[in-house]
């Protein structure tokens, strides 16, 4: 693989690291505007991270080494995922080693470490959060895989860049199978990133929280890494959505630095639109009861399966 490939790869990770907090800040801003509130600064997430990194870390007395390792593993997984997803270019050298199934595996590994860490201290909230997170995960993860499989069947490959290249070169507009999967994907994105209606990122109300309940025992730099990883996860999911459903603007094949120059503003535009859309969804929907979540995710799963069925029916 060329040097340009490696440069694209590293650039993608760096852009993801730099832009992920801004994406969250942007969503929060949009949401505040839509709800007639005064918006917080776009840079607030950066300041939060900065503040957390400079604090003294407090660990529970009975925390095991697993508890200290987990934030680094989760963060590393999300950074690596950012390098695998073709957000700006499709010539990514790492992708030959990790296709979309491995990407989902990477997310699953991050989730597993997070939940194990949440159970490590042995608090009521930690285990409650871990249980709920796994409940969300066991339906969201297969739904995501099924969404990816529809695209893989269309392009005969499970490697994300190949899928993206294939979809870009095809005709404009979604195929019917992909349209169903797009709906499923949006539902999965909401669930996996702890957004309303599954989880409320702004609350610490015991009865409803999922993600926040798991990270209650973390502080300072460990918490900063987890928060940053969560922002990266949102960024990654949105980029997966772009790769599957809105692949335009991505630098394809051997297009050189010029292609990247086009790709960066295109990505920024798409992110801005997606952030606005996410804020809109969060504004018009209400938080669900916890035991309703499986129904929501089962719908996502069914939509994804339906997408697959529609594709095979029409395509074969």
């Amino acid at each position, binding site marked *: 693989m060329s040097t340009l490939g490696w440069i694209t790869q590293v650039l993608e990770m760096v852009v993801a690291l730099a832009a992920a907090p801004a994406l969250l800040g942007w969503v929060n801003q949009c949401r505040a505007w839509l709800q007639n509130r005064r918006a917080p600064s776009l840079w607030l997430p950066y300041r939060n991270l900065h503040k957390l990194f*400079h*604090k*003294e*870390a*407090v*660990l529970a*007395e*009975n*925390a095991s080494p*697993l508890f200290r390792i987990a934030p*680094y*593993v989760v963060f*590393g997984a999300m950074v*690596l995922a950012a390098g695998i997803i073709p957000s700006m270019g499709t010539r990514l050298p790492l992708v*030959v*080693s*990790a*296709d979309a*199934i*491995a990407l989902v*595996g*990477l997310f*699953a*590994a991050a989730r*597993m470490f997070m*939940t*194990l860490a949440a*159970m*490590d*201290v*042995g*608090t*009521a*909230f*930690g*285990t409650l959060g871990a*249980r*709920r997170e796994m*409940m969300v*995960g*066991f339906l969201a*993860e*297969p739904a995501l*895989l*099924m969404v990816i*499989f529809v695209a*893989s*069947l269309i392009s*005969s*490959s*499970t*490697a994300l860049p190949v899928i993206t290249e294939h979809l870009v070169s095809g005709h404009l507009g979604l195929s019917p199978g992909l349209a169903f999967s797009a709906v499923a994907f949006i539902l999965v994105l909401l669930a996996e990133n702890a957004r309303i209606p599954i989880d409320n990122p702004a609350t610490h109300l015991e009865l409803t929280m999922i993600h926040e309940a798991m990270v*209650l025992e973390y502080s300072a730099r460990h918490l900063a*890494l987890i928060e940053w990883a969560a922002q990266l996860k949102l960024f990654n999911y949105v980029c997966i959505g772009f790769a599957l459903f809105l692949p335009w603007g991505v630098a394809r094949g051997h297009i050189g630095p010029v292609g990247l120059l086009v790709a960066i503003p295109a990505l920024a535009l798409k992110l801005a639109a997606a952030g606005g859309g996410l804020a809109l969804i969060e504004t018009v929907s209400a938080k669900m009861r916890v035991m309703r979540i499986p129904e929501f995710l089962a719908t996502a*799963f069914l939509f994804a*399966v339906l997408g697959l*069925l529609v594709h*095979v029916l029409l*395509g*074969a």
Partner: protein
Amino acid sequence: MISQSPTLLVGCLALLLGWTAIGLAGLLRPRSVRLAGRVLFPLGALLGFALAAVAGASLLGGGFERLVLPLGLPGLPMHLRLDPLSSVFLVLLGASSGGISLFAGGYFRAGEGAAPGLLCLQYHLFLASMGWVLIADDAYSFLVAWEAMALSSYFLVTTQHRLAEIRRAGFVYLLMAHVGALCLLLCFGVLQGGSWQFTFAAMRAAHLSAGWASAAFLLALIGFGAKAGLVPLHVWLPEAHPAAPSPVSALMSGVMLKTAVYGLLRVGLDLLGHPLWWWGLVPLILGLFTIFYGVLFAAVQTDMKRLLAYSSIENIGVVFTGIGLTIVFAGSGLQAVAALALLATLYHSLNHALMKSLLFLGTGSVLHATGERNLGRLGGLIHRMPWVAWLTLIGTLAIAGLPPLNGFVSEWLLLQSFLFADHVPHAFVNLLIPMGMALVVLGAALAGYVMVKFYGVIFLGQPREPSLAHAHDCGWLERIGLTWLALGCLGLGLFPLQVIGALGSVTTQLIGTRVAQASAHWWLLAPVPGRPVSYGPLVFLTATLAVVLMTVLIVRLAYRQRVRRAPAWDCGFGALTARMQDTAEGFGQPIRHLFQAFFEIERELPAPADRAPRYRIAIRERIWKMAYEPLADAVERLADVAARVQQGRISVYLLYSFITLLVLLAVALMS
């Protein structure tokens, strides 16, 4: 192809006899723990490693070796054969039993059930008979070895036969084993196809009509399915696995279930030759159902060994799904894809042998250290038993199917072969098989749920009982055994290309083609015919480690704040006790709630005014009430009817003989 001097086969045979000899040596001083534990079990482990090496050499060579022993029935001497298919399962047997025997050397103590010398005999006979099953080349020696395997494992299961519950588990196991064996007997009867030759070579040559071949396949599926724990023939498994001592559970779950997989592959793809495509649908559908069923029940268990037993059922489901896909593809003329599905099947069998043995042995250590099998009384053991905890973590992550460990590789291969299902040239089927993929991924995700529960409740959190503070880590022999199995999980995960290269001769033997490697790199797995798909676990691991280590380094360099230890915060809740953590019941509650229809739940809830509130929940399988209990009743009624004939008076019996004689005479005269 057929080598003249069967050197490797003789080597295997000598090692199997060596196991038998070690077992008999245990009888020299049956009460001595030191002889059995420190000498005989480690020696058995060495033989296991040697067997893996010999079979590995045969696998790489890809040769066929035959041997006829002057033993057995008149006119039917024992035929033995070592070919790639049996080699790969012998490697599985040798490699995992090596680790398990090392562990067992440190595990068995005095005063627990049967005497150590006797256990040593049963254990090694069990090993030898499993090896014998794999090299048998005629129906007679196959069934003799098969029965020896069932009987020796029965005695191992009932080691603690003073407990009624364990005697019952042993009975159910023996019964199911025999129902299965009867089906196999009939299956071989059909397979000989009127030639009355019971060697496997004659069965390969026999040309059966489609109807008889299908009957033979279905009989084999029932017979081997009962041994493997395929739903609905799985009922013995969650009873027998927890009842046995942990090394035996590991051996049964990791290795013995795989002999059934071997048997089905042998009959379905080798002896029957050209399978019809629709045969594959039966194991495919049953396998998919088994995945789902096993993992749901695993999620609601509160006994750690029962949880693992149900997880074994799930994994057997994955293997049978792979077999089903292989047959569907092979019968439809898609040989290249069939080879891919077969690889996934074999790979998953190898994986499961290592990771499930690792987990069962881990629970054995926990059981020894704490005396508890109940998840509700464990917790926080990562502090007291770091060796067991960290090695078990590897098995946990592997069985949850996370990259870059081994469970992911086989799942990846299986999903890749599923993605070819729309090529099957049969309407509807090519629509329905992709739906199966949904069940496979759902099962994999649920397996993650189960494993978080398993690991989190046992090793993490606070100890739920004060006595756990005295738990001790396992001894050095046990550590070596666990480490070996954990390294196996890592190795199979990181070097899939080398493993698949070695398995090539098996796909050549059974499907007639090898999987083509589309990439020139030794670290890149690209086995999918005609598709630009690849997976490189080593690069994956390196990249992950690099990113994680860089993060650690940067955070360390940039922020030198110290770490302070303090009591857990828990939202400032105050008095935190171990009882506030989720129990195993609590962790499984969402699954129980969502999939209520699957479970037969018996619940006892406290009334508001109870002085001593008590919450009890018991979960049973509906299948007992729906199928097995009516069946048992019917058998009993039938036996009552038959008992009327059995008067117990000799004059009546003489009358029976006389009437039989008359009838026979009449028949002889008529014809």
